[in-house]
């Protein structure tokens, strides 16, 4: 790395809030705080915006994953963890970096071509991820005005896959049911009736005057999978609804392995989100949209919004220590890598920032209490997410560029406990060169091996691995139709929950879901706790000029 010139000292050195890390949750908080008039300093140790939600070029992604993965050798112990601060009333507690990623394996099969196009990739760290049009994140963007900085495109289609390699369209709308070739007429009838039932249920919850409820209370509390069976929906439709529309992870038919058995009520809510998403923006094709130039655009949009409202941004600036009051143990500020000490009343931190266990022993109880949320906890019920990224030549489905594919539990192999989701994105959303596609894979798993194994199985279902010249003739007939793999990354990410701790709060890591619903909801909740239940982005006057210029297939999100 090139040595960067030393930073000039920051001025002022006193803020209401310091936010470290530019992930979605952190950026939402920074934007919300600065728009409410608070002074905010937003820092990121990386040279780019987005932290774990960033979109990066292939080399940057590679180096980020490697530097953030669990390394076999722990870093050499640095200077003593607790030092007196420059000021005598304060003590400083050193921070340690926690690695979220493990089992990182990156392989390139055609480095020459990738080298040539290396800067034309915008690859997501937290993929596969899309935005539902009726998602809370969209509401927040509209409310904050962040929508001015990002543009979306529709996901063209979604499919359900199985071990045969066949991809079947997800019949998620009236027109899709009509067109579907994989459903029988009777199945079309039952499915449409079910959708109508859900819609009438939604209409009624909006309208409080009517008291007639279509779905009984008892049914609402029963498992969703039982309710679907009660509606006479055959297994293949049940599986489409559960995994490709409600986007569930765990096998709802297997009580032993299912960690989260969905109630009908929640199921209806999930379908409601999907159905509302379908009709929200008239120029979106379906329920799902994706930001042009990658997911990294989303946190960046919030950051730009925050900057407009006076938030100060410093990238490539890690913090090395926290400053606590010697007497009371209260949080006072942070020490930057540049050595400067900055003070604030509140602090929001990226999930990677922890306090070293060894430093805790010498602290007082009050000091410990202040740092509570930064203490790494032994994970009970450890749940991880295995992610995979593939760059391919061609597309997994001809004529379709941006597509979502879901493999329901057990669809690929009998031991598959959770659903695998795959998102293919093309040059239309400016994430790769024209003739290529980027594929994202994810699956929830208990351990790395299990997750990686499932990812590889899904990959081989869709993609052809490059083979040495001599063997190619043999392979040609069987997998000719499958696109060729050029580059692949496999990694397993830990799922860390956010925690509110009074003055210091820790944000959650990228979660295992397909959208931002939970990420944003938890960020909002946390923000309200930190700031004292103040509403986010109260009455932003966003300029709502209708941009009439034609953008090819772009989805302009605007408030109607």
């Amino acid at each position, binding site marked *: 790395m090139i040595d960067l010139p030393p930073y000039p000292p920051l001025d002022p050195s006193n803020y209401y809030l310091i936010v470290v890390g530019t992930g979605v949750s952190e950026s939402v908080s920074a934007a919300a705080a600065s728009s409410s008039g608070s002074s905010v300093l937003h820092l990121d140790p990386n040279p780019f915006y987005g932290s774990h939600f960033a979109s990066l070029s292939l080399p940057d992604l590679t180096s980020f994953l490697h530097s953030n993965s669990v390394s076999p050798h722990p870093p050499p112990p640095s200077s003593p963890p607790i030092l007196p601060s420059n000021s005598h009333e304060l003590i400083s507690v050193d921070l340690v970096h926690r690695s979220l990623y493990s089992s990182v394996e990156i392989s390139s099969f055609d480095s020459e071509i990738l080298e040539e196009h290396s800067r034309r990739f915008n690859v997501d760290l937290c993929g596969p991820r899309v935005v539902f049009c009726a998602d809370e994140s969209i509401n927040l963007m509209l409310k904050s005005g962040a929508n001015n900085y990002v543009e979306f495109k529709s996901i063209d289609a979604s499919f359900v896959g199985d071990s045969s390699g066949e991809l079947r369209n997800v019949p998620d709308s*009236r027109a899709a049911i009509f067109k579907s070739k994989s459903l029988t*007429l009777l199945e079309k*009838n039952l499915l449409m009736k079910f959708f109508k039932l859900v819609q009438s249920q939604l209409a009624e919850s909006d309208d409080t005057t009517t008291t007639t409820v279509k779905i009984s209370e008892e049914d609402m509390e029963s498992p969703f999978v039982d309710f679907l069976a009660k509606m006479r929906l055959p297994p293949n439709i049940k599986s489409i609804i559960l995994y490709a529309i409600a986007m569930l992870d765990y096998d709802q038919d297997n009580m032993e392995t299912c960690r989260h058995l969905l109630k009908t009520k929640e199921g209806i809510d999930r379908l409601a989100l999907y159905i509302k998403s379908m009709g929200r923006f008239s120029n979106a094709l379906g329920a799902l949209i994706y930001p042009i130039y990658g997911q990294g655009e989303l946190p960046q949009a919030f950051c730009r919004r925050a900057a407009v409202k006076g938030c100060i941004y410093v990238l490539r600036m890690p913090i090395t220590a926290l400053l606590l009051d010697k007497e009371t143990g209260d949080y006072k500020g942070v020490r930057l890598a540049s050595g400067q000490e900055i003070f604030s009343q509140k602090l929001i931190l990226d999930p990677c920032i922890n306090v070293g266990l060894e430093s805790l022993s010498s602290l007082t109880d009050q000091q410990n209490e202040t740092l509570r949320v930064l203490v790494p906890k032994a994970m009970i019920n450890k749940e991880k997410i295995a992610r995979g990224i593939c760059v391919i030549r061609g597309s997994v489905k001809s004529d379709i560029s941006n597509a979502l594919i879901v493999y329901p539990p057990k669809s690929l192999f009998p031991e598959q406990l959770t659903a695998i989701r795959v998102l293919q994105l093309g040059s239309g959303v400016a994430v790769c060169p024209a003739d290529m596609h980027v594929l994202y894979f994810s699956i929830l798993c208990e351990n790395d091996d299990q997750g990686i194994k499932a990812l590889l199985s899904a990959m081989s279902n869709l993609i052809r691995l490059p083979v040495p010249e001599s063997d190619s003739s043999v392979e040609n007939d069987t997998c000719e139709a499958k696109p060729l793999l050029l580059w692949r990354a496999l990694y397993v990410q830990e799922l860390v929950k956010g925690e509110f701790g009074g003055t210091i709060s820790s944000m959650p890591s990228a979660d295992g879901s397909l959208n931002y619903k939970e990420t944003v909801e938890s960020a909002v909740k946390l923000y309200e706790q930190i700031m004292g239940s103040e509403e986010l982005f109260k009455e932003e006057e966003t300029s709502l000029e209708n941009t009439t210029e034609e953008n090819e297939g772009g989805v302009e999100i605007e408030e109607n």
Partner: protein
Amino acid sequence: MHGRKRNAASKPEEDAASAAEALELRLLQSQFMSNHHQKIYTKEAIQLSAKLQEINPEAYTAWNYRKLAVEYNLDSADPSLVNSILDKELEVVENALKRNLKSYGAWYHRKWVLSKGQCSSLDKELQLLNKYQKLDDEIKKNLVLRNFHLWNYRRFVVELTKTSEQDELQHTTDMINDNFSNYSAWHNRSVLLSSLVAKKADGFMPKETIRREFDYVHNAIFTEEDDQSGWFYYLWLLDQTVKMETPLRASPWPSDGSNIILSGPGCFNGSSSKFTTYCSESGSFPLILYFDQAVSGVSSSTVTIDSELKSNEDLVWEPVPEKNSQVSCVWVARLKFDRTEPVKVKVSLGKSRGIVSSTGCNLITPYEFVFTVHIDDTVGESQEGIISWTDGFDSWDAQSSKDLNSLITLDQLEVDTGFEWRKQAIKIEIEQFRKLPDSKFGKLNLAKLLMAEETMISDDDAVKGVHYKEILQLYNDLMALDSWHDQYYKDEHSVALLRKVTSSTESLTRHLFRNRNMNSIVCLRLNNLTLSRIAALEKLLFVQMLDLSHNELHSAEGLEAMQLLCCLNLSHNRIKSFSALHSLRHLKQLRVLDVSHNHIGCKHPVDTTRYLCSSSFSNSGETGRKVPSKYRDTYLVLRDLMKLKQFDIRGNDLIAGEEFSSFVRQVVPTLVWLDGNKLAS
């Protein structure tokens, strides 16, 4: 207008703005009119009219002015400039359409411009249309999808560009895949397919096409069973499936192979008790042809009679109900007989062309029937007693059924080549719709399909008639399910019921009786069956005494086909006026008529049935008699019933006082019994 949002009430400042706009428009308009009158076609003047049109596309004079201007400029222009002038016009139209997509003037102008021969940009026209039809705005979309201007213009451009019908068919497929509630797209599809099938285009043979389309439209029907667009298309397809290559069927009286007995005057008291007796008083008997569609061209040249009977070469065929009308389902000729020994009569039709249905179908297959006429010249005394509908009926004896067979069994269908696959297609459809048991449309369709299959089964097939029970049940369910269309289902139920009754000799005999008082005349009793409509007439041409009492009939429509009818009971029905009985005036043989206990004379604000019958005013000129206007309808029905002896009109809303009875006696001099009382002669 559908799909458009109502504007909120205007605010004062908006009012002011719109007043200013109006002023501007008025100014523009007056400037334009002066240009128009002075025939100024300068660039500035034309621009002014374009501006006017952008604000108000409905200004038709402005469009005409532009046409004149274009012609003026085209005459003087360099040939190289022709395209640019016409392009400018297209642009103006496009701007006007932005204001109002349903502007007649704008669309017409566009057609006019294209007809000026600017073929280079025709491809652009289709692109423009596709753009309109893919508008992203939901409200505009609704406006466009079913916008007939757009569809008409599309057909116009398609014709000009010679776009293949296959391509247009694909376009309808795309539109339907996008939103299958697009009735216009389905309709256009039916038009295109009809044309492709008629042309016998490659891949569009009827059998494959209909199967393919059935499979396609099933998707719409099963996905959303309440959506009407798909159902309309489905009904069209069903119609195409059932439609025979020889669509015309004729049923005659006397029927093929029958023996009829003609007896002289006063036959009611005569000795003959044969079932096929016809009482003839004028030395002639009727020959009746009943077609399943209204036809024209029945004459002595299209129908030939081969018999020993003399003076029947130039038979006059008359259409019932209207003498003046050229089309009718029922045609009658009177055959004279002058012999005492049995005579064989052979009637052939279809040998020479000329019988054409109102829908344009020719009777192509030749068709003939033979019957024998016997004469029974025992002269009896004429019957003078009152005819009762309540007693004197003997049940049917099995021996007579043989004769009956020849009367109700119709000729076998000419099995055309497509018959088997059509039958098969209906069978598959029935299977499909049995899977949609809870849907209103599903039930209705199933009933229609079963009925279609029933008509396709030939009469001697053992399974004939098996579906009627199910059909009747379906219509009963529908009446309960959808009370809005109760009357329609009731009518269909009646049709099915009558078809069931006439489907076999066995079922018909249950309704046949002999009337002791009427010289054992055969009486068909269809009372207490909740009938609201009369059907299956082609099998009932032989009936002379008919009891339709205690039903729900609103009109006697259709009965005019039963030319032999002499006794008719319509009591206890729902007939509201004499105009609803209009068809009875064609039943010249009618002697006994009972219309008691109906609602005749009820002060109904609009007599809806009157519009269905031919106007009574057209006949008023020929009346030599002074008729009180309140009895005009009565007069029009009764005056033609020259043989009526017994008439019962008790229990109606009409007050049958002394005035009315004397009027009736005046109109019908032959009357002996009125409302059960013998009239003093």
